[in-house]
């Protein structure tokens, strides 16, 4: 589709003028500019080599023209100095092209690496609450595919766009210097290029943008259909849907071709400009040659003609890279759409002075009047929530989904900061602590633990890499992983994760429990730890959980009735962001 995109390129120059920019477009532009700035040194070096290449090309063509002129004007044989120069320039040009290509590969790689790190920083700055708004697969593809798609933008488009005007007009100037008439013709044709594009470009710019959008949409639709193909097939509608897909594609083709018929006129304009320049110069030079047989004059004519393709080459390179340019807009838009979390008022800077105090029975947790909202203009997700847990307290938190339980948990984990109020952990304000000092005090078990690609041992040990083999064994015992360990093909060294051994929900949850044992933090927070388990498995898990609760403060959010005899001392009920019932049991 290279041609198609290169056509669209020519529109884009004028499309910018025609289309009013919206606010988010402006932000996108700012982001793109920032990317360009960060990559400027590499771009400049590449453009410089490109310029050298053009200059060497001039020498090459001049020596070729000189050789030919001597041969054509008869008598004089081959001048070996020019042949030597020609060969030297040829080799130099190959070397420059080689260097340019290697550097482009390296700079594309460097730019992608930089962008990836920038994204990583942004992800980590936002923290795990990002996952509330975005699917992890989507975020991961942003780190991988979206960044990879930008390779051409940095290695091809940027240098080409920095180079083309200078390169084109320096060729025109040199031709003018050698042969005024030819230089004027070539310059005229080069000027004609943007004029021609303005005429056809503006008319089709808007339409072609829509075509690209429609093409993308069809692509997305196809992917979506394929992802859900089982649903369609199993509902017995596959053939009908295939026909609908076919119709949509055909309709798009017809509309696209209608636009392309005009759009290709724009790319034909490059051909026209070049061919007119070539033919015109050849025909015109008939009059230019005053003395037949004059070597310098013949050289100048040949030089001018041979330089014509060179004058248009930079522009062609630019249009060939147009599809790369489109990618930065796609990726940039996706990155701009990353949600920005609200900033809490009066952030206290970490003082690192207070240290959470833990006891043998756990740690004290004091939540005072905290409020939070995820999005401006929306109701508070947490409104003046207060409760107090003594060391060793076990609190059950219940409430409908959407009541704010998960928000509360994320706040206790330090993923988000309260807009108002404070959370005191072991007497120390959470906001005055370094994130690492907060998480050191807390273990967390969610609905489904993430099992990383790696062995079972890696998956448990990552909770405490410095733990001894004995501690690991103890954690395996306490979490009852030892029950299913013999069933695994390679025991502790069994590969888990996406392409590894598939664990059942209960087996995976035991890994989360083992992690918590190994970490041995005084505060334990659980978010629906048995939501995905059948009752029998849930019962087994509860045995291990009870062991884990011993000597710790715990907050457990759950719907399961089985938790109601786990030894809880406090019951909290949430509704619409508020604690509506609070009960302390003896």
């Amino acid at each position: 589709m290279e041609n198609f995109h290169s056509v669209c390129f020519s529109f884009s120059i004028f499309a910018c003028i025609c289309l009013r920019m919206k606010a988010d477009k402006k932000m996108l532009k700012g982001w793109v500019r920032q990317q360009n700035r960060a990559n400027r040194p590499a771009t400049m070096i590449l453009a410089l080599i490109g310029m050298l290449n053009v200059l060497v090309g001039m020498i090459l063509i001049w020596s070729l023209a000189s050789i030919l002129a001597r041969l054509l004007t008869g008598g004089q044989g081959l001048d070996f100095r020019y042949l030597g120069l020609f060969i030297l320039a040829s080799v130099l040009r190959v070397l420059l092209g080689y260097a340019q290509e290697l550097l482009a590969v390296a700079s594309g790689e460097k730019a992608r690496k930089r962008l990836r790190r920038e994204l990583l920083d942004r992800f980590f700055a936002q923290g795990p609450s990002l996952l509330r708004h975005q699917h992890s697969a989507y975020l991961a593809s942003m780190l991988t595919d979206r960044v990879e798609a930008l390779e051409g933008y940095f290695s091809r488009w940027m240098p080409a766009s920095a180079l083309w005007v200078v390169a084109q007009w320096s060729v025109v100037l040199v031709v003018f210097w050698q042969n005024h008439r030819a230089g004027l013709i070539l310059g005229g044709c080069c000027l004609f290029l943007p004029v021609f594009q303005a005429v056809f470009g503006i008319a089709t710019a808007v339409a072609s943008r829509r075509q690209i959008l429609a093409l993308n949409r069809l692509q997305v639709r196809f992917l979506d259909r394929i992802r859900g193909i089982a649903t369609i097939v199993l509902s017995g509608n596959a053939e009908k849907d295939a026909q609908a897909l076919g119709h949509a594609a055909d309709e798009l083709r017809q509309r696209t071709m209608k636009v392309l018929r005009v759009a290709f006129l724009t790319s034909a304009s490059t051909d026209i400009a070049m061919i007119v320049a070539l033919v015109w110069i050849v025909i015109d030079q008939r009059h230019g040659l005053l003395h037949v047989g004059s070597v310098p004059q013949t050289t100048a004519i040949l030089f001018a003609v041979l330089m014509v393709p060179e004058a248009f080459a930079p522009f062609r390179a630019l249009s060939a890279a147009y599809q790369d340019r489109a990618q930065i807009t796609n990726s940039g838009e996706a990155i701009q759409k990353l949600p920005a979390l609200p900033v809490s008022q009066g952030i206290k800077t970490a003082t690192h002075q207070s240290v959470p105090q833990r006891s043998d029975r756990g740690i004290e947790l004091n939540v005072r009047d905290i409020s939070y909202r995820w999005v401006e203009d929306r109701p508070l997700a947490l409104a003046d929530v207060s409760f107090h847990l003594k060391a060793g307290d076990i609190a059950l938190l219940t409430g409908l989904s959407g009541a704010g339980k998960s928000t509360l948990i994320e706040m206790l984990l330090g993923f988000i900061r309260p807009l108002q109020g404070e959370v005191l952990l072991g007497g120390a304000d959470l906001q005055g602590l370094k994130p690492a000092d907060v998480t050191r005090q807390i273990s967390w078990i969610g609905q489904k633990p993430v099992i990383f690609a790696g062995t079972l041992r890696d998956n448990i040990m990552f909770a405490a890499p410095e733990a001894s083999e004995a501690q690991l064994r103890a954690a395996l015992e306490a979490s009852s992983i030892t029950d299913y360990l013999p069933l695994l093909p390679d025991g502790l060294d069994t590969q888990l994760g996406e392409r590894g051994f598939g664990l059942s929900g209960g087996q995976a949850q035991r890994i989360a429990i083992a992690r918590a044992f190994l970490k041995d933090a005084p505060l334990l927070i659980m978010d629906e730890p048995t939501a995905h388990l059948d009752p029998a498995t849930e019962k087994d898990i509860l045995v291990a959980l009870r062991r884990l609760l011993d000597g710790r403060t715990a907050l457990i959010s759950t719907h399961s009735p089985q938790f109601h005899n786990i030894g809880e001392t406090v019951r909290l009920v949430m509704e619409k962001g508020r604690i509506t019932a609070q009960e302390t049991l003896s």
Partner: protein
Amino acid sequence: MTQLRPLWNVWKARWARLLIGLLLAELSVCSVFLLMGQTGSRLGLIAVGAAAAFGILRFAGAARIILRYLERLATHDATFRVLADIRLWFYRRLAHGAAAGLGFRRSGDLLSRLVLDVQSLDSLYLRILVPLATALLSLPIVILVCLKGSVLLAICVGVIFCLTAFVLPAFMAKLSYRWGPELQRTQAEMNNQALDLVGGMRELRIFGQEEAATKRFLDAESAFYTAQRQQGRAMAHIHALSLLLTRLGVICALGGCAGLFFPKEQAVVGITVLFVVMTALDNVVDLPRAGLLFGQVRHAAERVAEATVVPEGTPDEGTLPVPAGSEIEVRNVTFGWTAERTVLKNINFRLREGERAALIGPSGAGKSSLAALLLKVVSPQEGEIILGGEDIADISTEALRSRVAWLSQASHLFDDTIRSNLLLGREHLSDEAMWVALEQAQIADFVRSLPDGLDSWIGENGSHISGGQGRRIALARVLLSDAPVLILDEPGTGLDVETERAFLDTLNSLDRSRTILLITHRLTGVEQLDHLWMLQDGVLKSHAL
């Protein structure tokens, strides 16, 4: 090249258009040769002071412009047609073969890769075949023109041309084909690490492992880039080599002009030959890139071909129309996904019209396998399943699936409006029917509250709505079908207890014309059942209610 055969068959249907595109491309190349040859000879004539006519030159210039325009139109039109054909072909092949089974496996990522593979097949015509075919045609023209100079020159230029246009690209294709798996592997590893890093952000933060995981991800990145760099460098080497070769070709032609190494030509002939040789070689200098692409396309074609193979054990399409009755009888059914492991052992049950049954059991007990059997995704190793008196093996598959509707966790919500998600291609349904179904699924109020109602867009896999709302829309879709049998596979997943209860309660209110088989790992207590079956270790036991 056998991997490309199915693709070839898709192309065959469009042979005329593809051929016209090729022909125009060939003519367009001929016009370039004419143009450059004329430029050379006219310049030569001017220089030696002879009279020169410029008619052919003007003609060649105009022809080039027009032919290039037509070529672009023709090749793009053909490409768009083939592009749609390939997608439809892939869709139909997948639909007839592997697709049904995919509902029982998690495979989203695999499918996205496949779509990318299908997409990369697009370049075969426009970026590989057309340039290669024009190069093939250029060869005899170049040789003929060179023969005007000398045989030796024709041989030398011919060899150089073949090396640049065919040998180097073939070599590059081979290299890129060989490195394909390594690139694919390292990229997959990087993607996996990215998924771990992002998906596991909570765990990593809580256990203080963010740095270690970041390092693993960046290591995977650098392994991928090492593989990529290897290919990039090879491409740069080969490109430099082909540039050198073309320069060598020009020097040969120059030698012909000057009588150096080659027999001396007449000046005007010499310069004409030189211009044609330069043009021809310039046209093929980028072909190694097409070679690189071809290596990648071969891998893509292999994967696509593999995916479209109908998996073993897929039941035959039956021929019988659906029977009137909808009583289900499962007789002595034994089944396993692989020969070694039997999931279901000698299962027997009968589900009469309008009855409600629940099938419970721990995960992995084979509950979903039973759903797969009822939907004819797989066939039992032993025993038979009877629907309304006919063995489902004999009933046409698509017809069977219109009688048995299925809702599972894997039911996909399409990135489309609520309306088209409910319709799924069925056109004869009225808005009223849709509202009734939405009402039954207890989501009508929510849909009504949306500004665009039924025409609201629900986003990629329902990302604009909550999980519970998505499940309800999927349920409404199932209710909307006139299938007399509903199989609901873990409908409560992702719902909180209250929502799940309300959801199951709606099933009680459905009229008794429908048979319902509820597959779940636990009961909530609101279900009103006629049968309760327990499935454990592959054995089905009936429980008292």
